[in-house]
C-alpha cells in the first residue's frame, strides 16, 4: 500500500469503528430506557395487586394487563432497535442490550405470574418480543433465564406484602412452592450460564424468606383450634373500622 492508500484505508477503518461505537452507545441508552420502563411496570404491579377487591382473579387480570400496558412502551423501543440488531449485529451488541432485556423479562414474567400463577415460557417471551414482522431480535436463552431468576426476588416481595391480606397466607404458600420449583429447575442450567449460580444464591435467599413467613403463619395458627379460613373473619371483626 502506498502512503495515501494507507491513510484512505485507515479512514475507512475509522468510519467502521466510529459506526460501531456510536451504535453501541445508542443501544446502551435504549437498554437503560427499557430498564426504567420495566422497573416502573414492576412497581405498578406490586401496587395494583394490593388494591381492595372482592374478586381476586379479576384484580390479578386487571393488574397484569396494566403492567403489560406500561411495558408496551418498551416494545416501541425494541422495535426501533430492530434495525440496529439485524443479522450478525445482535451478538455483537448483546452485552449492551442484555440488561434492558432481562429487566423487561422480569417485569413481563411478573405480570404473567400474577395472572396465571405460572412461569412464562420462552416461546411466550419471544411472542412478546415480536410484531407482525416477526421477532425484534433473537432472544438469548441466558437473558430469558437470568430475567426469570430476578423474578423470584419480586415474588418474595409479592408474597410478604400479601401475607397479611385476606387469602394472603394461601398465596404465600403458592409462591413458596413456585419459587422452590424455579430454583430446582434452574439448577441444571447453572453450568451453562455465567452469573446464574450467583443469582441462584439470591433465589435461595428469597426462598428462605418466604419459607420463614410461611412457618410463622403455620406455627401461630397451630396453636388455635380453628380452621384457617375462619381466622381472617375473626381478625376482621377486630380490625375493621
Amino acid at each position: 500500500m502506498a502512503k495515501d492508500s494507507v491513510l484512505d484505508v485507515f479512514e475507512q477503518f475509522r468510519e467502521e469503528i466510529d459506526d460501531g461505537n456510536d451504535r453501541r452507545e445508542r443501544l446502551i441508552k435504549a437498554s437503560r430506557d427499557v430498564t426504567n420502563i420495566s422497573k416502573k411496570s414492576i412497581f405498578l404491579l406490586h401496587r395494583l395487586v394490593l388494591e381492595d377487591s372482592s374478586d381476586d382473579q379479576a384484580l390479578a387480570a386487571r393488574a397484569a394487563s396494566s403492567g403489560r400496558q406500561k411495558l408496551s412502551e418498551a416494545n416501541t423501543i425494541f422495535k426501533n432497535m430492530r434495525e440496529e440488531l439485524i443479522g450478525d449485529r445482535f451478538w455483537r451488541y448483546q452485552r449492551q442490550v442484555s440488561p434492558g432485556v432481562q429487566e423487561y423479562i422480569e417485569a413481563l414474567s411478573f405480570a404473567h405470574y400474577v395472572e396465571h400463577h405460572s412461569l412464562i415460557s420462552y416461546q411466550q417471551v419471544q411472542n412478546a418480543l415480536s410484531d407482525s414482522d416477526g421477532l425484534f431480535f433473537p432472544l438469548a436463552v441466558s437473558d430469558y433465564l437470568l430475567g426469570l431468576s430476578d423474578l423470584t426476588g419480586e415474588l418474595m416481595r409479592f408474597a410478604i406484602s400479601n401475607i397479611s391480606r385476606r387469602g394472603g397466607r394461601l398465596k404465600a404458600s403458592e409462591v413458596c412452592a413456585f419459587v422452590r420449583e424455579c430454583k430446582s429447575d434452574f439448577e441444571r442450567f447453572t453450568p451453562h450460564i455465567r452469573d446464574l449460580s450467583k443469582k441462584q444464591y439470591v433465589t435461595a435467599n428469597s426462598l428462605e424468606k418466604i419459607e420463614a413467613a410461611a412457618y410463622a403463619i403455620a406455627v401461630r395458627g397451630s396453636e388455635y383450634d380453628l380452621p384457617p379460613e375462619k381466622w381472617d373473619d375473626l381478625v376482621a371483626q377486630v380490625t375493621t373500622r
Partner: protein
Amino acid sequence: MDPRDLESLNSLLEQDVGVSENIKEQVKEFDKRIRTIVGILGKIHSTPSHSMPELLDSVDPVLHSCSEITLAIADVIPPDQFWRWKDMWSNSMRSAVYAAALIQYLRNGTLLSLPRASEILGINGEWKDRFSLPVEDYLHGLISMVNELSRYVINAVTLGQFEEPVRISNFVKEIFSGFTMLNLKNDSLRRRFDSLKYDLKKIEEVVYDVSLRKLVPANPPVQ
C-alpha cells in the same frame, strides 16, 4: 499554573473546607441531641399508656432545640449548594424525623406530614436553595418509626395494652399503602421499604394473637 490562579483556586477550596468544618461541628452537636432523644424514646417500650404523655413531653425541648442546628447549618451553606453538603447530616435528619413522627403518632395517632416535620425541625420554607427536608429523608424517618412501632406492639401487649396492636396495624397499613405508590430505585430506601413489609407482617401476627385469644373487643371505637 499562574500563581494568582493557583491562589484563587486555593481560596475557593479553602472556603469549601470552611463550610465543611462548620457543618461537621453542627452535626456533632446534632448527633448528640439526637442521641439524647433516641435514648428517652427508648423508654416507650416499658411505659404504660397513662405515663406516655409525660414521657413524650420530656422529649419536646430537646427536639425543638434541633431547629438551632438547622438554622446554623442553613446559615453556612452557600446559595444553591444544599445538595452538595446534605449527606453530612442526612442520617441525623432522618433520626429527627423519626423522633418527631413517633411522638406525633403516640400523642395523636396521626401521621406526621412532611411540611409539619420541616416546621418542627425549624426549617424555613424560604431557605429552599440552602436547606430543606428532602422527601427521601422524610420517608426514611417514617420507616424507622414503623420499625420501632413493630417492637412497641410487642411490649405494649406485654404491658397488657391489648388495643395497641389493632390501632398500630391500621396506622402502619396506611403508611404501607402510601409506600406502594412509589417507584423506587434499588437503593437503601427500597431495601428499607422491604423491611417495612416484615414489620407489618409482624404486627399482624400480634393482632392475630390478641384477636384469637379474644383479648381485644370485637369492635374498637373508631379513631
